[in-house]
């Protein structure tokens, strides 16, 4: 994808796509955060509704999809979960993951000897080594450190904590 800074006019289809992509990313992140809290602290939709003085059906509607979310919805929901977004704006091209993190060979492909390349004719991708466990653990650790009183928790701290846990 070309940088939007190098274009005279951004096509409408790109504008629609990126609007939805943003909604989807916030939606999936918020629901994942809720699922973690539900698991760890038994938080329920009903409790969120109660804390926001809303009908539980409203929370169910929110959780059904991001289409009706506004910035106020996001703020309310995150507040009810004692959470907030990380405010960092980065270039779309700054962390070009597709080239740097794309797995060279998947587990299955490794077994069958199929090498992967980053083209549109990628043969297949199996169980990626980069599943979400690491991410979820990092999120959980970050929350745990935050609850322990660290106001500023960096990724480096989370990484350190992970190493300490591994090595005992």
């Amino acid at each position, binding site marked *: 994808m070309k940088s939007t800074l190098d274009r005279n006019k951004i096509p409408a289809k790109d504008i629609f796509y990126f609007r939805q992509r943003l909604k989807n990313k916030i939606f999936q992140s918020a629901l994942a955060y809720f699922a973690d809290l539900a698991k760890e602290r038994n938080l329920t939709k009903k409790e969120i509704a109660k804390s926001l003085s809303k009908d539980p059906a409203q929370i169910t509607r929110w959780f059904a999809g991001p289409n009706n979310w506004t910035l106020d919805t996001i703020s309310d929901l995150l507040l009810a979960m004692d959470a907030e977004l990380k405010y960092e704006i980065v270039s779309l091209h700054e962390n070009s993951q597709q080239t740097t993190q794309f797995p060279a060979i998947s587990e299955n492909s490794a077994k069958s000897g199929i090498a992967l390349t980053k083209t549109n*004719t990628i043969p297949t991708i199996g169980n990626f080594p980069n599943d979400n466990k690491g991410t979820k653990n990092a999120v959980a650790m970050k929350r745990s450190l935050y609850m322990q009183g660290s106001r500023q928790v960096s990724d480096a701290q989370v990484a350190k904590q992970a190493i300490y846990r591994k090595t005992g």
Partner: protein
Amino acid sequence: MSIEQAISSRVNDGSLKLVIPMAPSDRLLRSLYLTRELYDEVYEEKESLIEQKMFSILIADLEVIVNSDTIDPQYFRCLEPRKAGIWEIRSTRQEPQIRIFGAFAAKNIFIATHYKLRDELGRKHSGQWELEIKHTQRTWSELFPAYTHKKTSDRNQLYTGALDEEYFR
């Protein structure tokens, strides 16, 4: 030949196309393949603004499978009868709503066969749903005559990052 190699053959002969996220910063966590016909319908240039909007939103929704760390339980739904192992991706974020049908070849590898507007499908247990299941099964057999798709409805066996349905009831 493994199912992965069979997919590779279908990609090479042009019957399947891999979805690569539009944004360069997005990671590729799972694989989504579309049949050639579906890919062309979704990605071909659209003339009207309404169609551009509809399919751009659909593309963003499809990419959730590819790049989202987690996937909410309403995104994927296993169709009844569940033992058939046919799934729908629910693009509920717009009007008209869209359903994409397909099946899992292996963990984190979804083969999408075709789509329908939600309005065309009628009520929840209408005969149209059965027709879509048969359509998916037929397309699968044409693509992979020697391989069956995954038939479990256990999300954790089918893809990583599945959020537990229990918390959202």
